[in-house]
């Protein structure tokens, strides 16, 4: 490890440092606001360290990590989303008693795991990053342990995540047994050797098992069933984190893993990915149709969104990488905003996720309703919002590679998807007697997150040029 390596690792180091600092702070004395502030400062410092790392990029730091523009972009996304979650968390936990500070600690752990994931170029780093993320999430999901729902969600997530990690590991082991390397690039290079049919099958089986693990994290159909339960049970800020950071990181990794391997993984594998994408688009959208819980609804919709992303991943052309990056950015913004709205409306005992609790929201808290509407429209891919440009980008990537059937599936299923987004919008604008008449004041930190994400959402929707330019040459 040389000094350049350290400079390249600076964001991760800063993050780890922040982790230590927060831990120390908690040890010294518990203070919710201070902890949150320190967490944010750490995240901000990590973000500030990104340009330092970018100056050295692309660089390979040991075999495990590759710091490049692609990874750093996603890292930025992860860090910013984490900061948003921290702010939402502050708003969410502000009125709680008991231990609130571990939330930030775990959040930083999870963020570190996600950051490792997005720059990993080795199965070991992949697995470690994934597990840091997962283990931190088990605790985060079950964080309000006085709520049976949260515990239940935690248990479900734990059992299934560990199970899927088992599949993932077994797949890795098979690939390793076949190829003799755990390094992504070396793996791709090894593909140059003409392999026998059997070894091809072995590799594909390994990849398939790996896909189970990845598919679980991304909640692709048929590995999606946990999603809604966990989203619903977890506290809203954590749900936001699960929906954004953990998916973004895994998508980034998947693309990094598959991009060089694309050629050798063969038709069968891309067929599988295509089927998973289609199944996710169809399944996610269908499942969300009649949801009465907004969190579950968003959970199902996230299944569909990952299906859309997979279309771009599959495209694998030059347009694919910026498409995926843009889409994930737009998706992250919209999900953060959506769960943010739920978070700022939730109380200690109940999450404000019943659809009927949104009834007539526009007339009580027009600002909040407008934000949520913008977020939902973005998820639905309506112009003026980032989601539209993202969807446009994804369709572009698909069209460039003639994935016409997937595009048509995308189009038709997002039409179905529109239905449930509209249901929520309609509920907020419904003039019938609202269930809950008292507007809950929005905490400043929550309002900040919502405002910024709305502004960004519309900015990216109307003037995406700067970001697009940035993303243009970022293939891993």
């Amino acid at each position, binding site marked *: 490890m040389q000094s350049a390596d350290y400079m390249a690792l600076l964001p991760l180091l800063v993050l780890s440092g922040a982790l230590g600092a927060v831990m120390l702070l908690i040890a010294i004395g518990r203070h919710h606001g201070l902890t949150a502030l320190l967490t944010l400062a750490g995240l901000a410092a990590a973000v500030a360290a990104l340009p330092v790392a970018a100056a050295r990029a692309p660089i390979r730091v040991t075999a495990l990590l590759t710091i490049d523009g692609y990874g750093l972009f996603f890292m930025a996304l992860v860090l910013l989303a984490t900061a948003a979650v921290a702010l939402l968390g502050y708003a969410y936990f502000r009125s709680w008693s008991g231990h609130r500070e571990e939330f930030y600690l775990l959040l930083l752990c999870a963020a570190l795991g996600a950051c490792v994931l997005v720059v990993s170029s080795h199965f070991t780093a992949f697995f470690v990053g994934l597990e840091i993320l997962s283990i931190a999430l088990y605790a985060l999901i079950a964080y309000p342990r006085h709520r049976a729902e949260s515990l239940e969600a935690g248990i479900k997530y734990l059992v299934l995540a560990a*199970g899927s990690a088992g*599949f993932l590991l077994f797949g890795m082991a098979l690939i390793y047994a076949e190829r003799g390397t755990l390094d992504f690039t070396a793996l791709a290079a090894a593909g140059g050797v003409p392999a026998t049919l059997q070894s091809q099958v072995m590799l594909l089986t390994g990849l398939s098992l790996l896909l*189970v693990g990845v598919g679980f994290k991304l909640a692709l159909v*048929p590995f999606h*069933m946990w999603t809604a339960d966990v989203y619903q049970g977890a506290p809203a800020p954590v749900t936001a984190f699960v929906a954004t950071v953990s998916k973004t990181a895994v998508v980034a990794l998947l693309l990094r893993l598959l991009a060089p391997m694309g050629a050798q993984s063969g038709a069968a594998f891309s067929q599988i990915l295509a089927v998973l994408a289609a199944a996710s688009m169809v399944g996610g959208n*269908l499942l969300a149709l*009649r949801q009465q819980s907004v969190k579950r609804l968003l959970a199902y919709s996230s299944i569909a969104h990952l299906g859309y992303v997979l279309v771009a991943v599959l495209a694998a052309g030059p347009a694919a990488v910026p498409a995926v990056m843009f889409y994930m950015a737009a998706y992250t913004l919209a999900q953060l905003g959506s769960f943010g709205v739920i978070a700022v409306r939730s109380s200690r005992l109940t999450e404000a996720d019943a659809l009927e609790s949104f009834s007539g929201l526009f007339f009580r808290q027009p600002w909040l309703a407008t934000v949520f509407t913008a977020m939902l429209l973005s998820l639905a891919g309506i112009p003026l919002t980032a989601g539209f440009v993202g969807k446009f980008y994804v369709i572009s990537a698909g069209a460039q590679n003639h994935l016409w059937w997937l595009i048509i599936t995308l189009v038709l299923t997002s039409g179905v998807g529109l239905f449930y987004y509209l249901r929520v919008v309609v509920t907020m604008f419904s003039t019938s007697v609202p269930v809950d008449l008292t507007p809950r004041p929005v905490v400043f930190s929550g309002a900040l997150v919502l405002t910024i994400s709305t502004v960004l959402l519309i900015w990216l929707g109307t003037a995406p040029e700067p970001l697009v330019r940035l993303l243009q040459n970022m293939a891993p």
Partner: protein
Amino acid sequence: MIQLLWLIPALPLAGFVILALGGARLSRRAAAWIGVGSVGISALLTLALAVAFLRGLPAIPAHIRQVWTWFDVAGLNIGVSFYLDALALTMMAVITGVGFLIHLYSVGYMAHDDGFSRFFAYMNLFVGAMLILVMADNLMLLYLGWEGVGACSYLLIGFWYRDPANGYAARKAFVVTRVGDTAMAVALFLLFDRLGSLQIQELMQRAGAQWGVGTILPTVVALLLLGGAVGKSAQLPLQTWLPDAMAGPTPVSALIHAATMVTAGFYLIARTHLIFELSPLAMSIVAIVGAATLLLAGFSGLCQTDIKRVLAYSTVSQIGYMFLALGVGAWAAATFHFMIHAFFKALLFLAAGAVIHALSGEQDLFKMGGLRRELPLVYLVFLAGAASLSAIPLVTAGFYSKDMIIWEVFASNRGGTLLWAAALAGALLTSIYTFRMFFLCFEGPLRTPVAHKPGWNMSLPLAVLAVLSLVAGFLEIPHSFGGGVQIFSHFIQSALPATQLLPARESNEILCQLASAAAALGGLGLVWWLMLRSPQAGAALTRQPLAMKLSRFWLNGWGFDWLYGLLFERPYIFLAQINRADIVDGCFTLLARFGLALNALAGAAQTGRVRTYAAGLTVGAAAIIAWVVWL
């Protein structure tokens, strides 16, 4: 003078605009002045124009005056431009002249009606549209007038809008004629497609130059135009609307459904006669339609109980004569009969109106009677009209015009004995139903008390029209009457060709005239005998089972309404009603249901049990591996 051509339709239209915008704010008096005055000035202008026209006649048979370009698209240059020739002038004279009289009459007739100014607005609009129809230089503009008069007809039939039956009759009139109009529109498309113009004179020229006699295209075009004509003129098979159209106020029946609009079909055929002449088949069909209609309507006329319906059937029948004449190429005769018919039919309607007015709206013939003494003037003018309609020889104008047709049907190279026989039978029928009506109305005991007597403004038009019905015939006296007088034929020949008579039959003119005279008089005699001389015989005749059946059948217009109801109206309504909820919508709803069913299906896996989810994970893994291993 010719420069002012555009004023003639413009004045009534201006009257309409003022009346429509002014609406109820105008006093009755003002409305009457505007309504009657605008048409009156038009009539005077027409008169002046006629003088000017006649002065230049042999040299200049026609004038064209363009007012503005309506539209000009891709070679279709349509102007709002007017064409004046003998035919148009005849029509204009009748429209403005008779129109003015009827307007004047209406001032009295409608005096107590709520919609007084609305009535005159519609009437003015009608006159304007009708004038555009007959003056149009191109078929587009003609179509404008054509549909315009249809709309006015609709508005006026349904004038008393409270009664849904009137509304029904109005809509029926509009829709049935629109069926014909649509055929005519298709003819226009075809003409433009093939001949590249819709300007009538150009069309006639090009048709003559490009199409051979007896080829298919002129036949198709002619038949489509005939479709329009039969719709407007209530000929077979679209005759069903006219008897119902009597729901409108009586002046309307007089003006629109007797004197002018219903003869638009005749006008159309006469206007485009060159195309018809290119198609002998179409000509024969026109003749056959005319003959069949005149008989059919004649029989129906025999059995009507409503005085206006009798007149309506007689109108259908008389227009049948015109068509018959057109079909045999007797252009001048048809035009002449049109004019005379306008006089006497308007007279009859107005007189009937006076009767109805007098009896406070009673229209049932069997509730009338004995009015000879109560309404002497009406009695006299009605008699004149009835005589003219029945073509009582020598003294009535109707005789001269109808006789001319009957004779030319017999003698024309396109005519034939069968058609002639039909025409003759029609004459007999006409005289029977006319005098049946007349006797029922004016003879016998008084059955309903007389409430109103016609005022001067009603009586004056009656008198004028009565005179015209009697003396107008002297414009055209047959050859057999010592060389005769052919003022009208000469005049009209600047626009329409002369009839081609078969030399072999020309010598039989006087015999023919005798036959038609006999038919007219025979009919009169028969009715007189059955009704007045020995009513028991008449009553016995009507009690015959066969007669009763036939009578009911004819009363209902040969069951055409029933048939069309069965074939078109009821299926249409049925189809529309069963599909009210839009079956296509249902299909999409089904699709949505399907989506929800899939939702339920997919949701079934969301049991909330972690073991189920783990199983899903495992199944997915197994499936994917199976895929890569075996595919």
